[in-house]
């Protein structure tokens, strides 16, 4: 099961390495549910996450951010690709090895899921209204056979205190809490099994500004304390920049650009990143924005344009862009881009 990682990085600190991940959803029509096409929700993306770091995943709605994270954790079965994950679950002596998640069976995947958790966007919909906070937070322990004893209550108490809730809250039900508190319950549940990697799917977009700041601070504190790695999915570019070490920008199922947060925001290499940055409203009334207008609408993932998916909306497009798909290349160290002209364009950051 152990395999060598093939990246340009020294692989010691990489805990998740995704290569060529694809997730196509079939479009079925007619009486016999004939497959007439595919929605290419995630189309050949590659990225990696290092231990204890945050990878931000941004893009417009429908670009495949959520599908990508769900495919990695195998809530959706990926269509193709390799998902390498570093884990100590399969050896008795705590020795770490790298496994390909797509080759694991159900029971092995269950073991892996102790090390990967998820925080969801909707703090109302992601908590069962008929379960008490104690049941919600201890459920992962019960599922993995670590619950049931008197120590469970201790664990739940510790978790609730860690996320800023009071232990007496554990007998209450989700409707008795505000949105920010509910999100904290979700975070406590994600921490229950001591994961090493957490997928945060728009964890703060349903929250008010002041609660959003509290939650982001909590996530950062937890990361420092437990050496957690986050894959942070969001559409708010300023939040993503704040929390992420590195950021990947997605457009119609593909990663357009991936780089360290500062490099990506200040010196973008992909025209889509540039346009997206220029559209972010700045909280400064004296700021004169020069917005880059992207003509047309987001491409349809079931019927994408030929060549580079972004070319119909790109202000820099030339002939080759509509004919050939660009290559995923590392133009600068740790700065990956998916564009024919990235090396010759002078783009503006924020």
């Amino acid at each position, binding site marked *: 099961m152990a395999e060598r990682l093939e990246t340009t990085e020294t692989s010691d600190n990489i805990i998740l390495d995704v290569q060529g991940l694809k997730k196509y959803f079939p479009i079925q029509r007619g009486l016999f549910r004939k497959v007439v096409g595919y929605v290419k929700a995630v189309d050949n993306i590659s990225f990696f996450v290092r231990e204890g770091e945050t990878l931000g995943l941004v893009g417009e709605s429908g670009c495949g951010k959520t599908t990508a994270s769900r495919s990695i954790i195998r809530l959706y079965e990926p269509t193709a690709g390799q998902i390498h994950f570093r884990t100590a679950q399969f050896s008795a002596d705590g020795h770490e090895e790298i496994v390909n998640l797509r080759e694991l069976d159900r029971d092995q995947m269950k073991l892996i899921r102790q090390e990967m958790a998820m925080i969801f966007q909707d703090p109302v919909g992601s908590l069962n209204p008929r379960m008490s906070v104690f049941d919600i937070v201890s459920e992962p322990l019960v599922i993995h056979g670590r619950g049931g004893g008197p120590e469970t209550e201790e664990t739940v108490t510790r978790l609730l205190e860690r996320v800023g809730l009071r232990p007496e809250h554990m007998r209450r039900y989700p409707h008795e809490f505000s949105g920010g508190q509910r999100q904290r319950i979700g975070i406590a549940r994600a921490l229950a099994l001591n994961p090493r990697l957490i997928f945060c799917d728009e964890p703060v977009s349903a929250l008010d*500004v002041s609660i959003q700041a509290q939650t982001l601070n909590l996530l950062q504190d937890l990361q420092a304390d437990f050496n957690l790695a986050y894959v942070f999915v969001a559409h708010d570019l300023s939040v993503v920049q704040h929390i992420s070490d590195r950021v990947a920008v997605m457009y119609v199922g593909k990663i357009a650009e991936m780089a360290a*947060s500062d490099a990506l925001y*200040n010196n973008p290499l992909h025209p889509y990143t540039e346009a997206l940055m220029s559209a972010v409203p*700045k*909280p400064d009334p004296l*700021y004169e924005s020069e917005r880059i207008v*992207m003509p047309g609408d987001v491409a349809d993932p079931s019927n994408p344009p030929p060549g580079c998916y972004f070319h119909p909306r790109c202000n820099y497009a030339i002939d080759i862009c509509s004919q050939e798909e660009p290559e995923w290349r590392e133009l600068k160290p740790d700065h990956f881009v998916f564009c024919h002209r990235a090396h010759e364009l002078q783009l503006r950051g924020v």
Partner: protein
Amino acid sequence: MSEASKKDDILVEVKDLKVEFDVRDGIIHAVDGATFNIRVGRTLGVIGESGCGKSVTARAILCMVPKPGKVAGGEVLYHRKVKSNGSEVTDIVRVNDLDPDGDTIRQIRGGEIGMIFQEPMSSLTPVYTAGSHIYEAVSLHRLTPFRKVGDQIAETVQAHRQVTKEEAREIGIDMLQRVGIPKPQERVDSYPHQLSGGQRQRVMIAIALSCQPRMLIADEPTTALDVSIEAQILDIMRELQDTVDMAIMFITHNLGVVAEMAQDMVVMYMGKVVEKANAVELFYEAKHPYTRALLKSIPHVGRRTGERLASIEGMVPDPFNLPPGCVFHPRCPDFMPGKCDRIVPSWTQVDGDDHWARCLLYEEV
């Protein structure tokens, strides 16, 4: 901005407005003493967190506070232009005295004051069938599935502008073009489900603007949209504002959006307007600790410091059990024991230039 320099540039005056909801567990003071003006050709940004009374204030202006809420005090004055003997005069209408189902308010609503309410997706009512109730004037602001976009715009126009069906359709196509929908001649015959989220929101704006209102109330118009579409919608609103000198009341919790749009600002917390100033002053020299904390708690794009965000401690208080004194004192970084928890701050001018705040830091007590 031609009229902005004239003396009478106030369009809507809100004076000490109070709205209460009498529910089983007690009375909620959803709006508790809101005072501000909306001026011709300018944008008033209203910011605050959920439940602070922003939307209820907007609804009170249109005399459509949902039950069991009622206006319990204060007044909303709308400076209405009426034609009498061939010349235009300004008639001041006290909106809260109007019959909420009466003719006057129905002409103002949608006709003179357009509205775009939150969540375009859930404004869809699934009960209408194709072609029904074309002349019905009630669903002015809802996009109804199974009915063509063009019909719905035409209906609004007909209800308020007395034109024929064909003319209304022409106006519909023209409006769709102006809000940037491609191929308006074809799109006018589309049903809402055939449009994307951004397009639907643009149709909502087209409906709201089709009667050339003097004012637009936009309640979180871009919250559900992506930044690129949000930017387009904001551009459209500003463009239209420039051409027809429309006033906008822009309600949002997004400080970035409001900084781009608004010239005047109002900050609300727990039903109270805690600060009022022009936008530049509010963003650069906020006086109220709540406003300052809000501004500090958002991450700024392009300015990554690696530091923690300054968050506001604690939570919004329980509306049935408000803290005594200043409602913000339990969370306030400038809390003065013995004062803030006892004395209710009053509405004080803190700066010469029409900058007001509700905070004991600026009062002699």
